[in-house]
């Protein structure tokens, strides 16, 4: 017993920390510094301030990831704006008229940020920055959305994404580059992705062919909205020898894997010019009775404008629309009934 205690006290003495005089931040081991940095909040800027004190502190701060629920990065011809949300609260908004300076800040945020949802709406100035396009750094986001983005910048950004992307929403016009997009591993493996307002008629068969070639997982979904006819027909033509069943609204084809089929569905919404399609990898055992006949739900998922206008059309009395009726600041339809108030109940 006594020897046990002697051993332990000896061990404690050996383990004792080295003498330290005038203890300060620089004397802290990195793991403690990181623990302290974790307690700092980005919104209070000082975490960013610490980053600016010296090289060593910068690399330390940069090694610490921050979770953002949402991140919106957008540019126009004059400035760069970041809106970052932590637990759905806006925590940082930065406007920068100097695009190069803005780029540096953005690079830092993208490096440390782990985004639940990242919305990118850049126009030319930043997207054309050669450094941005060639930078080795990768983004970490579970869901990414491109809005009003010059389509030729979608591919470089997707290439900069780390693995683990769960949805890709391309809400900007793509024209020629679908084959390059389909070659990206994120796109090949993502459970859900869509393209809005696609200008060609080749998307359905190209995506289905990619899924066949890569033996994509059951549950993979692709949706597209196109203007004009031709997509449905091209799909039929391309997979003529694979068709298992077809109707006006659906086509089911076999893949090279006997366990899984691909189901193509067609949907429209009254008064809308776009045609909507959904492609899904389904189990070969799925019965026709299990098909989902409510196309509105999946169309609304990809096109919020359609959802919004559809809701508007369903407001009683909308047909009697008056020029004096307006939309409020939140985009809700309001009827001016001369009672001094705007309300949607009238």
């Amino acid at each position, binding site marked *: 017993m006594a020897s046990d205690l002697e051993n332990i006290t000896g061990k404690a*003495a050996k383990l004792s920390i080295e003498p330290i005089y*005038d203890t300060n931040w620089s004397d802290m081991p990195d793991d403690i510094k990181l623990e*302290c940095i974790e307690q700092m909040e980005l919104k209070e800027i000082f975490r960013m301030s610490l980053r600016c004190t010296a090289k060593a502190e910068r690399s330390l701060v940069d090694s610490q990831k921050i979770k953002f629920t949402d991140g919106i990065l957008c540019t126009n011809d004059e400035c760069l704006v970041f809106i970052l949300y932590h637990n759905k609260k806006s925590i940082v908004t930065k406007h920068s008229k100097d695009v190069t300076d803005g780029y540096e800040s953005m690079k830092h945020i993208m490096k440390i940020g782990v985004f639940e949802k990242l919305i990118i709406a850049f126009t030319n100035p930043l997207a054309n920055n050669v450094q941005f396009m060639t930078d080795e750094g990768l983004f970490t986001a579970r869901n990414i959305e491109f809005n009003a983005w010059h389509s030729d910048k979608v591919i470089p950004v997707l290439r900069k994404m780390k693995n683990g992307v769960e949805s890709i929403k391309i809400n900007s016009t793509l024209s020629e580059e679908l084959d390059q997009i389909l070659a990206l591993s994120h796109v090949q493996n993502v459970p859900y992705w869509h393209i809005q307002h696609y200008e060609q008629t080749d998307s359905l068969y190209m995506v289905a062919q990619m899924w066949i070639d890569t033996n994509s997982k059951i549950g993979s979904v692709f949706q597209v909205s196109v203007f004009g006819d031709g997509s449905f027909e091209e799909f039929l033509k391309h997979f003529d020898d694979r068709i298992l069943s077809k109707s006006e609204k659906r086509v089911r084809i076999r893949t090279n894997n006997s366990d899984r089929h691909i189901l193509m569905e067609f949907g429209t919404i009254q008064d809308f010019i776009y045609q909507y399609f959904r492609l899904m990898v389904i189990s070969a055992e799925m019965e026709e009775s299990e098909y989902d006949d409510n196309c509105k739900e999946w169309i609304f998922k990809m096109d919020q404008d359609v959802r919004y206008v559809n809701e508007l059309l369903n407001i009683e009395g909308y047909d009697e629309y008056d020029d004096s009726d307006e939309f409020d600041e939140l985009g809700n339809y309001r009827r001016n009934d001369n009672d001094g108030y705007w309300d949607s109940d009238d």
Partner: protein
Amino acid sequence: MSSTEQGTSSAAPAEPTTAPESAAAPEVPESFYYVHGKDKVVHKVSAGALQHSALIHGMISNLGYTEEQAKANPFPFENIDGDILQMVVDWCNQHKGKPTPPEDTNLPKQKEKLFDLVLAVNYLEIKELLTYCCKQVAMMVKGKSPEEIREIWMIPTDAEDEAAEKEAKKRAGKEAAGETAAAAGDAK
């Protein structure tokens, strides 16, 4: 070794508390250990309070002992200042068997003391207290500019770092040259 016993736990081993009338099993008396810091002042701490320290808990777990043996062999933490160890012991005693609150406002505000406490707590592996301390460290520079942070925490600038490195290399070079010359002299 000075054997001044301090702290709230310096009383004799726990007196049996009033047992509930219906209690079937007799309560096991609480065991105590002894620790001292640089100042050799010995603190008597209960095993329950020491559970906060993963390091000490790991050392004493499953160890049978007598009061005399424990008293005769206090754990020496020679490089922890006495006042810092006292703070740690007090904190462990205060939070013995209690859930830790979300904030602890009783931590030292003085910079050097706080950093010393952080190092000691980190070494003793007291996770909750370390979290409080790190929060307190973070609060020290809340809202401060990089220059202010550098001043408060005495962080050298990159230029100062480089200059110090150059100076150290220069000194090492001189020392090496001196040693070579001395060795050559000895050889002659």
